[in-house]
C-alpha cells in the first residue's frame, strides 16, 4: 500500500465507495449519478439524482450516516482508514457557501469589536469549513464544548 501514490490510493477509495453506493441506489431503485473526485487529500463522492433529498435528511443526518457506512465499507476493502467525503444533491457544497458567508460576517464583527464571538453548535464538517475560512480571513478560532454541542469561538487577532 505504501508504494502507491496518495492520489492512486484516494482514487481507489473513491471507486470502492462508489461501488458500495451504486449498489444501494440500484436496490432502492433510485436514479443517481456518482461523481468521483479527489479534493483536499480526500476521496470525494457526489451523488446527483434529482430525487434523493430523503437521503440527505434534516440537517444532513442521513448523508452523515451514509458517509460513515461508506467509509467503513472502503476501509474493509483497502484495510486503511478512510476520510472519504460524500455529498448528495449538492447539499454540502451549498452548506459550505453558507458557512463561508457566516465566517466572513462573524470575522468582520470580531475585527470591529475586538471581542470574541461564539457560534451555534455544529458538526465536525461544519466546524472544519468555519475554521478554514476564519484562518484564511486572518483570525483564529477554537472549538469548545462536547459533541454534539461542540461549537466554535472566533477570536480577535
Amino acid at each position, binding site marked *: 500500500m505504501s508504494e502507491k501514490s496518495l492520489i492512486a490510493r484516494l482514487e481507489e477509495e473513491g471507486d470502492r465507495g462508489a461501488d458500495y453506493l451504486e449498489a444501494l441506489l440500484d436496490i432502492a431503485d433510485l436514479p443517481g449519478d456518482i461523481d468521483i473526485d479527489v479534493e483536499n487529500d480526500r476521496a470525494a463522492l457526489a451523488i446527483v439524482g434529482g430525487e434523493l433529498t430523503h437521503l440527505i435528511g434534516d440537517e444532513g443526518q*442521513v448523508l452523515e*450516516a451514509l458517509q460513515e457506512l461508506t467509509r*467503513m*465499507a472502503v476501509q474493509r476493502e483497502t484495510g486503511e482508514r478512510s476520510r472519504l467525503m460524500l455529498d448528495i444533491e449538492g447539499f454540502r457544497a451549498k452548506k459550505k457557501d453558507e458557512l463561508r458567508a457566516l465566517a466572513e460576517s462573524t470575522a468582520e464583527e470580531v475585527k470591529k469589536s475586538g471581542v470574541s464571538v461564539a457560534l451555534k453548535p455544529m458538526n465536525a464538517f461544519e466546524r472544519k469549513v468555519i475554521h478554514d475560512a476564519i484562518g484564511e480571513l486572518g483570525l483564529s478560532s477554537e472549538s469548545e464544548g462536547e459533541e454534539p454541542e461542540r461549537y466554535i469561538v472566533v477570536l480577535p487577532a
Partner: protein
Amino acid sequence: MIDEALEHLIKGIVDHPSDVVVSEKNGRRGLTYEVRVHPEDIGKVIGRAGRTAKALRTVASALARRPIRVDLLEADE
C-alpha cells in the same frame, strides 16, 4: 427492498458477509428488521457508542420514508 438494502449495507462492512441474514418482522412495535451477523462482527455493526447501529437505522428509515426498528443480533452457533 429495505431488507435487501440493509443486507447490502451490512455485508459491505463486516468480515463474514456470507453470515449476514436479514428478516422482516411486523410486530406491535411496528416494522422491525432483525439482522443476524457472525458473532465476531457484532461489535462492528454496533460500533463505538452504537454509532454504526444508529447509522444503519437512519439510512434504512430514510429509504423506507418512515421510522423503522433495526435489531442487531449474533447468529446462532
